[in-house]
Every structure is written in C-alpha cells, then in structure tokens.
C-alpha cells in the first residue's frame, strides 16, 4: 500500500523552526528540546525498522550507544576531528546492524525482538568490561562539545536539523523503488521475490539505515551530555524508543517524533519520586489500548477521505509469519470481498 506521503519533510522543517525559535526562551525548555530531538532520532530509527521494515528491533538504544562510544573514544581519547568521527558514528552501528540483520530477517517478529534484546545486553556488557576503550563502569567523561555549537541554543538547531535530514532521508527511501519494494515485502514476501526483490539484503539495509540514525543520535547525545556510561543509553532507551514510535504511530513517518515529544512531556510533568513509575507505566498501558494505530493512526480516522484514499492502515504482520503451512494459503480475506463479479463503474 503505497501512500502518497504528504510532504513530511516540509511539515517537520516547520515544526523544527518553531521549536528552535521558542525553546531558547527558557533554559529547561531548551534542554527538553535538545533531549526530545535526540530521542526523536532514536524512536525514528525504531519507526523505520519496525514501522516500515517490520523488523522488531529492541537494539536501537545499543546502536546509539555504539555511536556514542565511538564518538567518545575516537573524538575525545584519540582526538580525531569532528566530521570523520561523525562518519564513524554512523557507519559502525550500520555495519553491526547489517550483519545481525542478515541472520535475523527471516525470523518471526517476536523472535527478532528477543535476538535484538540479547544483542543490546551484549553491547551493554562489553561496554562495562572493555575498560581500556569504553572506560568500563565509570564510562568516559569530559567530551568536548561540537566546535561552533557549544551554546545550547545553537546545538538545539543542530539537533533538529539532524532530525529534519533524517526525515528527508526516511521519506526519500519510502518514495523510491526500494520503498515500494519494502511495502510489497511487508505485505507478501513471495510477491516481492516475484518482482525481483532480494528480501534479506533490503531488510538488512533498512535496519542498517535505522542504526545509522541511532548512531547519529548517539553522536549528538555524547556531545551534549559530555559523558557516556553503560547506563546512559541502555536497554530501557531501546524499549522506550519502540514505545514512542508505536504510541505516535509506527507506520507514519512523523509518528515517532510525535510519540517522543508526548512521552517526554508525560515524563517531565508526572510527579517525581517513587510514584513516577506507577503513573508512567499506567499511562503507557492506557495509550496503547486506546490509540490502536498510534495517535496519527487515530487522527487519520477522523480526516475526511476521498474514495482513492487508503483505508486506515492495518498493521501488517509479514505473510510468512502468519502462513503456518507452506501451501500458498491466501492471507486472511481483505475487508472487501476479493473480486466483485460485476465490475461496477470505477472512479475516474
């Protein structure tokens, strides 16, 4: 189901402009905006890998951590200049993701989630034990800010321009031949193969792209917080990235960004101390039950739709995850009766 995607990049650019102009008014708003931007990138990467490629990855936090540690080690310890370090922070997580994905793409969604969770655990344990490189439990402190973007207001602009670039790349992939092929793969792998799609490399490339996005978030995180330790970007970050994407609407390009801002606000204004988890957990359950396709999915239902507009997006589980027998079982009947016998006069 190829949706003519409204110009998400334009919408995102406008939102980014508003954020960058309003945030500097108050220091804590600025801090909130920077953090929301960084975590939007991670939840965007979850939206890309799960929402579009159907790969349920719980390792987005780990990819961000790899990006962060690479920046901390090469940037601070070895003193490399900023741009090569940024390139490395994008490429290394992408390579790690590509290799893992090739072993995982044919698994059922929940099995992929477990495998990625295990990978995230391994990354965390390596970060704790490889003292010479990652600084072990203490981590690495005193990471210099990005030259020229030391002031938080400027850094905020850098963060949100990264988010806009990520959306532009995300959108151009989804509108390209590979994006169309991906939609076919998510609907029915066999059909995609018949169109000449190499399924495993395509899905792995999508996870690699999402890992690069998470790596960029790691690069930004470590330059802002100037400190990285195994706890900073742990499995909790991966799970909340997925939550933010799913709550916002995983299959919509802007869903994850909306989800991130909403959940961050929720965390900021919930009463602190012991009861915080109770409210946060409760709110998550309620949102997940109420907004079935995420908030954007919910909104779509109220938007007036012309005949050619798509029906509300039904989250697709790739065909082979459902098809138990190898017989070409037709996936469950689409809502409309497959082929109306009489071909009624169609729309223009």
């Amino acid at each position: 189901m190829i949706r003519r995607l409204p110009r998400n990049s334009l919408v995102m650019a406008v939102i980014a402009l508003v954020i960058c102009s309003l945030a500097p008014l108050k220091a804590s708003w600025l801090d909130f905006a920077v953090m929301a931007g960084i975590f939007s990138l991670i939840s965007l990467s979850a939206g890309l890998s799960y929402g579009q490629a159907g790969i349920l990855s719980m390792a987005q936090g780990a990819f961000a951590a790899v990006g962060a540690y690479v920046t901390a080690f090469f940037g601070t310890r070895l003193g490399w200049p900023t741009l090569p370090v940024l390139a490395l922070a994008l490429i290394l997580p992408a390579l790690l993701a590509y290799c893992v994905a090739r072993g995982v793409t044919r698994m059922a969604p929940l099995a992929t989630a477990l495998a990625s969770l295990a990978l995230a655990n391994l990354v965390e344990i390596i970060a704790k034990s490889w003292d010479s490189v990652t600084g072990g439990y203490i981590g690495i402190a005193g990471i210099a800010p990005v030259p020229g973007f030391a002031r938080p207001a400027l850094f905020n602009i850098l963060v949100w321009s990264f988010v806009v670039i990520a959306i532009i790349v995300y959108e151009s992939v989804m509108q390209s031949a590979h994006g169309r092929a991906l939609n076919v793969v998510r609907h029915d792998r066999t059909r995609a193969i018949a169109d000449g799609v190499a399924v495993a490399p395509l899905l792995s490339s999508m996870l690699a792209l999402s890992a690069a996005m998470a790596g960029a978030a790691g690069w930004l995180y470590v330059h802002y917080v100037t400190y990285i330790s195994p706890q900073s970007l742990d499995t909790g970050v991966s799970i909340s990235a997925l939550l933010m994407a799913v709550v916002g609407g995983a299959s919509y390009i802007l869903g994850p960004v909306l989800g991130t801002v909403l959940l961050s606000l929720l965390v900021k204004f919930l009463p602190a101390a012991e009861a915080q988890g109770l409210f946060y957990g409760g709110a998550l359950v309620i949102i997940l039950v109420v907004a079935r396709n995420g908030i954007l999915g919910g909104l779509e239902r109220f938007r007036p739709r012309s005949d050619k507009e798509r029906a509300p997006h039904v989250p697709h589980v790739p065909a082979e995850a459902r098809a138990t027998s190898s017989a070409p079982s037709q996936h469950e009947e689409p809502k409309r009766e497959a082929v109306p016998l009489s071909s009624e006069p169609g729309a223009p």
Partner: protein
Amino acid sequence: MTRGLLVRGIDVAFGGVAALAGAGIEVRPGRVSGLIGRNGSGKSTLFNCITGFVVPVKGQVMLDGVDITRRAPHQIVREGIARTFQTPRVDFRMTVREAVLCGTYATVAHGFIASALKLPRARLAERNCARATDELLDRMGLAHEAGRPLATLSMGRLRMVDVARALAAGARYLLLDEPAAGISREEQVTLAREVRKLAASGIGVLLVEHNFSLIRQLCDRITVLDGGRVLLEGDTESVMGDERVVLAYLGTRHGEEPPS
C-alpha cells in the same frame, strides 16, 4: 549460443515422494509452449523449479545458454524470467499503476543508499520506471484503469495487471500460471489476443493451463506431464489428438482396461 529456456532432466523429491522424474520443457522466444497435466502431475513443481523456488535434486535449467538452476528466485526474475500467480497475491488497496510500477523493481540497478540520498542515478531510474510503466499500461490497454484500486477490478483485469507487472520486470520469458481460471468468456478472448501480441513481440511464453480451447488457440508446442514424467511432447495438433492424453485427462470408460 542456443536462444531459449531449456529445462531438462529435472528430478525433485519431497521426503521420498518423487514429484518430478526426468521432466523438462523448452520455451523459444516468440513461441508459446503449453504445459498440461492432471492435478498432481508435477506442473506447479516444474514451474517452481524454473522460477527457482524449488531446487531440483538433478537436472538443469538453461536460459540462453546460461545455467540458472541454482540461482535465487529474485536473481532469476532479473535474468528475464517473470511469472504470474493463479490466485493474485496483491495488496488490494494499491492502484493498477502502483502495482505495475512495483514490477519495475527488477530493472532497478542502483543501490539502497542511492535511493536514500536521492542521488542522480536514483532519480533517473525513477523517471525511467515511471515512463516504462505508463507505456506498458497503454500497450496492455490498462491506461484508463490506472488510478483504480485493484479491489475494484474483475479477476480478468487483475490477471492482465499481473501480466503487465511481469513485463514491467523486463521479462524475456513469461510464465503464465493458469491465467484463464475463473475469468469470463470475453476476458479469455482479450487474454488470448494479448498473449499472441506478446509472443509476436519476441517474448517466449510458457502457458500452464487446463482450458483446452485456450491451449489449442495459443500454443505452438505442448508438453504433457503425468505422475512427474513427461508423457508426451510435440506440436499442438499431434498432442491434442493423442489417445494417451485423452486417457490421462479423462480416464477410461467404465469397465474398459487402460492400455498398458
């Protein structure tokens, strides 16, 4: 270099059960080859061997002199062998144009990164795919239905879209999987006309079909499968008249002994 799709000596077994034994077929460019046989005779298994979904134990699939037996299915499509599905496997909310556009993926050479960064070669490929799709839609008479969701189409039109999608993949050899099943009389006529036009344009067609009138109209040569073996292979007239074919299809009259 022998032009054509030559499939010879194919043995396939599923857990001890011999699905195919020494089966084979030839598809020449510009010709229509028929493949008939009762259900369970191994037609679809042979079909899957050619398209790479099943790897035969023994035997060879040669495409214009190149051995593609062990190739992955998506590579075989890119080599020029495209197929249609008997029960259409499509997302019914796609429009006709989008469905055919998906087929053009097989002609796309640029990588994932080029698409992500919208590099010039990616943009060029996009334009080419769009142009090829529109040309195909005109050629196949689907242009006026281009914007309609597939769900609003009849089975016959869906089949035509499937053929168009296969051609969009740059098919030199077209494998049709029971295209006439469940479509109306007039739609069979249009189907026959289109297939004849395709063959005339140099495309080799392999037609797997139960509908004898269509087989008789379209096919230059026919291969008959029975129990995983090639019962008979020859030009249409001789095969159609052959007593064994009638027998294999219709079985013996009550009480008569089948010839040895």
